[in-house]
């Protein structure tokens, strides 16, 4: 059952399609990464989903929402560079936006306290936001997005501006929030996506290139790689290896023979048989899977 349905969404800026004919669905309870290089149209997509931008064409529909309903009631959104009222304290700001999200004042205060604690800035709650560090602002940003317990939490590049520690904290926080709400976040860094998300939407130049669960994508683009290290004469062995029919491609990288194979079991038997009969000076035999990073690069460079 889809919670949010995006149908042929297109956004044109000055004659150029920033987002082109984008269609996808999000199921409840998932953490989905919107992955793509800079300029892929990720931010534009999130802004259309949050109602900040109007689609040039196409629709966004939310499950159970009336035709004239306000999508903003169901979503929480954190822009890439959140800007707050710097003269307010963190708590004041949360109570303010909580009330804007139709919470009563006592509810807003309760939620504010809860999320201040949850995102780990409770100590600074009465300090002016102007005095917050970048990481603290990012956490406050997540708290303000969660204040009205939205069904969908959208985060635009939530970790890209943070230092390694801040990044770790925010990723952990997202991991926790996953239990509570559906998360859609954009990133241009694959490892962040792999770390917390269940599903990937891969965007490039405004279009959806690939989508699915991380596992299914790995499987779909499955190629196995065998790394071989020899004591000497790497080149001769490479040539001999290339004669084996189960090996589709072979090359040398960092003094190591790398082989791409389709059928790993067959290839292993062939290679090891040959190595043992010809007494190759083999030092290392390692099997690895082609990473999503390579898939990402391949898709993007197409």
């Amino acid at each position: 059952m889809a919670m949010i349905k995006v149908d042929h969404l297109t956004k044109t800026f000055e004659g150029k399609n920033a987002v082109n004919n984008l269609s996808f669905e999000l199921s409840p309870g998932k953490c989905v990464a919107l992955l793509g290089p800079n300029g892929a149209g990720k931010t534009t997509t999130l802004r259309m989903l949050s109602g900040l931008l109007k689609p040039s064409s196409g629709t966004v529909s939310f499950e159970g929402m009336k035709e004239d309903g306000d999508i903003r009631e169901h979503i929480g959104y954190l822009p890439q560079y959140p800007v707050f009222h710097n003269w307010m304290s963190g708590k004041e700001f949360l109570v303010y936006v909580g009330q804007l999200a139709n919470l009563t004042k006592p509810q807003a205060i309760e939620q504010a306290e809860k999320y201040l604690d949850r995102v780990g800035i409770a100590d600074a709650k009465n300090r002016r936001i102007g005095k917050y560090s970048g990481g603290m602002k990012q956490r406050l940003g997540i708290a303000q997005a969660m204040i009205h317990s939205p069904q969908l939490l959208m985060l635009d590049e939530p970790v890209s501006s943070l230092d390694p520690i801040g990044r770790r904290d925010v990723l952990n926080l997202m991991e926790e929030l996953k239990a509570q709400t559906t998360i859609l976040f954009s990133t241009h860094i694959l490892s962040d996506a792999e770390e917390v998300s269940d599903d990937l939407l891969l965007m490039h130049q405004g279009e959806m290139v690939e989508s699915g669960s991380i596992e299914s994508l790995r499987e779909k683009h499955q190629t196995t790689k065998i790394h071989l290290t020899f004591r000497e004469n790497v080149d001769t062995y490479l040539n001999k290896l290339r004669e084996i029919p189960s090996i589709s491609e072979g090359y040398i990288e960092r003094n190591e023979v790398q082989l791409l194979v389709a059928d790993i079991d067959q290839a292993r038997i062939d290679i090891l048989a040959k190595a043992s009969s010809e007494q190759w000076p083999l030092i290392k035999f390692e099997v690895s899977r082609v990473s999503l990073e390579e898939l990402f690069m391949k898709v993007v460079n197409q």
Partner: protein
Amino acid sequence: MMQWKTIFKKEMLEYWRNFKWVWVPLVFILIAIMDPISTYYLPKILDAVGGLPDGAVFEMPEITPVAALMMSLSELSMFGVLVIVLMSMGLIAGERKSGVAELVLVKPVGYFTYISSKWGATLLLVWTSLIIGLLTSWYYVNLLYGDISFGALIQVIFFYGLWLTLVISITTFFNTLFKTPGIVGFLSIATIIVMSIFNQIFSHKITWFPNNLSSHIGDMLDSGSTSGELWGTALVTIIIIVALLFASLLAFRGKEMAN
């Protein structure tokens, strides 16, 4: 309504924190009393610095209390309006430019709620300042020039407040159109100047044009009765204010809240 109050209260808090509640009323007092006081003391000052050369006859025209109070209005129409435009040119534009609007308007806030609550907050600040400023001016006028009844003053405040409300509404309207406060300020001032030029050319034909509020107020003070023209002008001003708020909503709806 809850959200309206929330934004309104947030604006009030902001006005305390950035001292608008202190300096705007003070500035309105200064603007309002500047002219009546300096005019009263001008002959004495001239005297004190050595008087006029022999033979020169300097006749100060007798200034009536009404004329003195009208001086306040005339200064307010100049500097008061300038202060209002400058302090509210970022009312909405500033939030959109800085990016705070992106966080606020992604919450389920109606656009009209957002616009009208901010407009209302400015209104409260300006009306309060106007009342304090004109009360002070009235006190000095009574002291230096002669009596004006308190009832008359209330009427002056009410009708003149409509003019300042129109100024706030014009600025609010441009706030929804542009997100650079400087452009908002410039266009607001330009509009008010154009209106005043238009009024100077056509005032004898279109007596109900909002810019005539001041002169009708003067007539009211002189004659002691509110003319139909004053009421008519007030009504027209109110209609324009409502229309501007409506236009603000339409303009804002057509805007994208992020770029």
